[in-house]
């Protein structure tokens, strides 16, 4: 083993560099191998190459989607509004339900660390691990088809992210205002309202707006499993092979997301 007091000779340096390069090369080879194996197993073996046909055939398939179904547009207004509302109410509901998780999930305010903190972390992980489509399926079976299931699905999916980020915000607060309010004889409630909340609320609001924007995107597909909104229209257009209709629905979704992005940009600027 190299004696730390002895400086490395040039030969040592060259040897170490070679070794490092060797390891890197080895990892690279393994990665390429994985890729090739994966490509072989998934793409090449699994694909029905007959059905796809040639590149020209693919081009023809894609061409079917070009075009807008104008007749569809009036009927899109309702589902679009519904999708938007599902995203809004769902995000709000998620925030309301995650308040206890934020409380339990912040190390500096959790009431009983060995029990409440793990509960919060598990709830957050569950919420974020289950895809919104799966949540939608769960809630459709619990409360039936429609927007209600969609709202609950969005709430369940967002809960984890909002709680995790908000708990982190609470853990990172500046304790100086807390010290000041305590020093003047403030109660725990007053410390919370005057020292903690003013620091934390703008951050949480920013998180909620961020998640709301993402939820618009999520709400647009919940209809695929019957949970309301544009997803259902999308599904119907696909089933009737009305490809221009599909494109029209996608454009409607894009417009919604654009609105979300604009609102999000300006509100987050106003928050700073």
């Amino acid at each position, binding site marked *: 083993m190299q004696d730390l007091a002895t400086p490395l000779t040039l030969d040592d340096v060259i040897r170490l560099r070679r070794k490092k390069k060797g390891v890197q090369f080895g990892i690279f080879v393994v990665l390429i191998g994985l890729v090739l194996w994966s490509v072989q197993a998934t793409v090449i073996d699994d694909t029905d190459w007959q059905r796809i046909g040639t590149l020209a055939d693919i081009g023809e398939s894609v061409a079917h989607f070009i075009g807008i179904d104008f007749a569809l547009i009036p009927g899109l207004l309702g589902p679009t509004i519904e999708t938007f509302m599902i995203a809004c109410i769902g995000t709000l509901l998620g925030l309301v339900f995650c308040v206890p998780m934020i409380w339990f999930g912040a190390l500096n305010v959790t009431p009983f660390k060995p029990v409440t903190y793990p509960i919060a972390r598990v709830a957050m992980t569950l919420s974020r691990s289950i895809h919104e489509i799966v949540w939608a399926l769960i809630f459709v079976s619990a409360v039936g088809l429609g927007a209600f299931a969609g709202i609950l699905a969005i709430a369940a999916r967002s809960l984890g992210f909002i709680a995790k980020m908000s708990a982190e915000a609470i853990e990172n607060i*500046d304790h*100086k*205002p807390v*010290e*000041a*309010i*305590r*020093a*003047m*004889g*403030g*109660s725990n*409630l*007053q410390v919370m*309202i*005057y*020292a903690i909340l*003013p*620091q934390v609320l*703008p951050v949480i609001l920013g998180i909620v707006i961020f998640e709301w924007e993402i939820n618009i995107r999520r709400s647009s597909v919940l209809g695929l499993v019957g949970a309301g909104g544009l997803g259902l229209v999308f599904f119907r257009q696909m089933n009737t092979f009305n490809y221009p209709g599909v494109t029209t629905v996608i454009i409607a979704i894009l417009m919604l997301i654009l609105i979300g992005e604009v609102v999000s940009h300006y509100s987050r600027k106003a928050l700073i």
Partner: protein
Amino acid sequence: MAILEVENLRAKYSARGPEILKGISFEVEDNDFFAIIGPSGAGKSTLIRCINRLIEPTSGDIRLDGTDMLSLNPRALRRKRRHIGMIFQEFNLINRMSVMDNVLSGRLGYVGAIRSIFRVFTNRDIQRALELLERVGLQDHIDKRADQLSGGQRQRVGIARALMQEPNLLLLDEPTSALDPKISREVMELIRAMATELKVPVLCNIHDVELAREFCNKIIGLQDGYKMFDGPTETLDQSSLEEIYAMEVL
């Protein structure tokens, strides 16, 4: 009569840690501007925070206004803290709130839960806050957010906030360490002027010996948790300073 009597005060940060204060005793009279000086790590900050029990002493006696501070239960402690105003090295303001709201928050010890939530203060409180803000020279900044102010301005908000409490004692924890020399002097002058006018004694933890000499009438010097000097400012001579600061170069 002494407003604050400290006897044999000992303190540690953690149960198994080293002892920070090793038996400090002194008295503050009600017209004093009392300074605590000493090198870094001597325990000055700890001592100031023991007075209002932001740090719990391990043993000793602290009597404020005749009340034994260490025997108070949490509720009584809160009520007592209302009468102790504290001004901090890093201002400790509520940054996102306005200057006015920060000053008004000085009355929180006197205000109940519902009124705290809705930020309802009496008209008398509001008038007092406005008057204090004018006295510290911030009448043009009342509705600005605290983080839009300069360091010197923020400390003046801190002064107004502390005085809103109508305190019987002012604690200052290195109030000028975060400010440049000219502003430091202005802030100390303001504190001295208002404390004299309102007849509030001051106990001040200060790093700059020159400022201590200029503004304070009594000084104690700490070194490594022990009291090395206790007496009127005039009697602080070079040899006492050398004793307090030991190896430090002034």
